[in-house]
């Protein structure tokens, strides 16, 4: 994983500061959890152990890497879970058990994702609806749409050509034996989103509008355009996550349920500022891995799903409290 401290500006002036770059604590937490998992299940250090872990975490990690764009810009995207559902259900309907249709169904799903992102962005930017409400409305709408599209009874089958991305392992790789395609997708998407957020003008402008939209506007930042792009990136990452999930989960109208909050939790664990202005793609991916690691550990211990929900809720709150505490201690004025 690329080590990138949260919000660190890559100015060459960094060298002059004489301050050590702060490493985001999420990486230590993740490392500690991985050690804990290994202790409770020594098989984890085998390729089958950690590769399956990464494969399982990939959809959430991709989702978090997209969600962080909206969070940094000062909003939330609650519609991503329903975009996942729509992707899985919609693909199964369009594919209609025809393996040859995959090549055009996937672009169609990305087009749908693009449209959802644009609508979210337009509603938030021009109709001035708070993103929490706008994307909540979108979530309810899309869940309903997915249900209607599948006539309430989704086909429980996706052809192998579609499931390739989420399910296949590339065999015969030295050292690690095999490489899941899902992990490959995560690496590619992660690198692209890292570059876009931390190396381009878009990334710095996202930070600016999340930090102080009025100052950004007075400085010539095209607020609406930047904000719409953030929602589009989040939606497209949700379509990607949906394609991966379709690969290893079955088709149902609740595949995406809860993913929006898990993605937001992952970003917060990664140290993102909830009201915008600060956040990092690698740290959000690490946050997603951390969350998955916690769930894995709870699974090993044998705790049921409701306990997982309680834990996730507590983590979300604790992460926000810790982030606030850390920022206050770090000073400022």
């Amino acid at each position, binding site marked *: 994983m690329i080590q990138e401290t949260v919000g660190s500006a890559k100015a*060459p*002036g960094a060298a002059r500061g004489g301050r050590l770059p702060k490493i985001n604590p999420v990486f230590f937490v993740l490392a500690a959890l991985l050690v804990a998992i290994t202790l409770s299940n020594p098989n984890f250090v085998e390729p089958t152990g950690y590769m399956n872990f990464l494969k399982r975490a990939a959809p959430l990690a991709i989702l978090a890497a997209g969600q962080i764009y909206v969070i940094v810009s000062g909003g939330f995207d609650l519609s991503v879970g329903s975009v996942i559902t729509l992707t899985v259900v919609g693909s199964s309907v369009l594919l209609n058990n025809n393996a040859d249709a995959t090549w055009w169904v996937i672009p169609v799903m990305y087009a749908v994702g693009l449209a959802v992102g644009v609508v979210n962005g337009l509603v938030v930017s021009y109709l001035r609806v708070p993103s929490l409400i706008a994307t909540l409305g979108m979530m309810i709408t899309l869940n309903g749409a997915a249900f209607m599209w599948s006539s309430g009874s989704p086909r429980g089958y996706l052809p192998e050509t579609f499931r390739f991305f989420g399910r296949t392992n590339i065999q015969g790789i030295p050292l690690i034996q095999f490489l899941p395609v899902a992990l490959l997708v995560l690496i590619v998407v992660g690198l692209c989103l890292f570059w876009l957020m931390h190396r381009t003008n878009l990334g710095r402008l996202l930070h600016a509008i999340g930090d*102080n939209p009025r100052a*950004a506007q007075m*400085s010539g*930042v095209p607020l609406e355009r930047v904000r719409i792009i953030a929602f589009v990136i989040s939606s497209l990452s949700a379509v990607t996550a949906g394609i991966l999930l379709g690969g290893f989960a079955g088709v149902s109208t609740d595949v995406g349920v809860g993913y929006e909050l898990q993605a937001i939790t992952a970003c917060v664990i990664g140290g993102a500022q909830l009201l915008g202005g600060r956040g990092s793609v690698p740290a959000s991916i690490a946050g997603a891995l951390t969350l998955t690691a916690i769930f894995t550990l709870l699974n090993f211990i044998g705790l049921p799903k409701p306990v997982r929900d309680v834990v996730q809720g507590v983590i979300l709150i604790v992460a926000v409290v810790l982030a606030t505490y850390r920022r206050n201690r770090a000073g400022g004025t």
Partner: protein
Amino acid sequence: MISPAIEMRGITKSFPGVKALKSVSFSAYPGEVHALAGENGAGKSTLMKILSGVYRLDGGAVVVGGEERHFSHPLEAIRAGIAVIYQEFSLLPERTVAQNIFLGREPTRLGLIDHKAMNAEARRVLALFGSAHRIEPDTVVADLDVASQQLVEIAKAVSLDAKVIVMDEPTAALNEAECEVLFGLVDTLKKRGVAIVYITHRMREITRLADRVTVLKDGETAASFDHVPEPDTIVRAMVGRDIGDFYAAPATPQEIGEVVLSVRHAGNERLKDISFELRAGEIVGFAGLQGAGRVALAQAIFGFAPFTEGEVELAGKPARFTNPRDAIRAGIGLLPGDRKAEGLVLMQSVSDNGLLTARALSGLAGKADATPFASAEEMDKLLHELDVRAGSFSQEIKALSGGNQQKAIVARWLALAPRLLIFIEPTRGIDVNAKAGIYHLMRDLARKGTAIMMVSSDLPEVLGAADRILVMRAGELVAAFPRGVSEADVMLAATGEEAVAA
């Protein structure tokens, strides 16, 4: 011989890593105004916070009415008759004037709040300042203007029977006319035998009000005067150097060039029939009262609150912009008056703040550290040239002083090399040394051919730094003066009393 109302002897206070005050002594007698001057960070506020019980002292003694006291809570200080009026008011905006004045000690009748008695008493206190008609006790505080709110703060202090009133830069948010009201109030309080500690770094206020002056610098008493010395003497004590070159030299006729901006009969709902020209190489100051339309004019030119009528040309091309982005593209820059709300992205680095506009006008997918306008290295160089003091340009801008923040915003615009740069309240909240830096910077820019529009409520600043002065009143341009005009003439034009006098 009267004894002092308060006396602070050899006060020492340290914060982790900083010695904020080193053996500072200070006193205030009943019926006098003792001005406490010094740059930002000199220790003025710390000293007053010790007096009012917000901080505990590390060494020294606070004597109130001849008795040594150790306040551990602001309430104890208030009970001992010490009231502090901070820059940020402590009024409850949704309550009435009377409710605020009697907060926590409302008069009761049969266990219920006696509104009648409360309003009557509030009116009596307000009448002491001749403001019973201006402010009704049952007005909600949020509906009052800043000056009136301050009056309510002072009324509250008086009704508490304060022997000592500390005013922390009370004119920071006031315009000229409101300042006069405040000065009158200070005179009234003085006559009533209140000891007033007046914190400011404006020389005009010291000359107008003070009986004695103490200057703090770096936590120590730099100078103490039992009279009011020449402003130069005070400023020298404050900054530790001579300030003969406080303002930069004016433009010579050769330096003034082509017309950059020409506005003809332009207006919108806040501006009426505005016509003027700005030339390359000149600094034009815009004076006027708060709400006279100076900021509205700047925002109209910048496309933030656009003109709805008239013609505007920038370097000969039509320039009625409807959003800041278009205005910036055409070569207009604006430094907002409220840096925190409109200028800075506080959580981002100094360098990011400098590069913000360069990035905003470059392609979204372009490299953030190499915009066509400036690379990250060039921005660092520019920040260095402007002498922005920061541990590192990659640290958050939040921790920088106002002057350094302002210079970072200047750097943002310099990277774009605008034809016209609009400064709104360029030195608000900036200490004296940094002020001089900003004036010289403006002049250097003008020398390089930029037209500079300076909107400022600090009249001496407008008179000192501008080549020409335009005065606005009620949304109109009412007067134009050359350099060297007197403060009184500008004030008359700004308040509109000219017509009466004539």
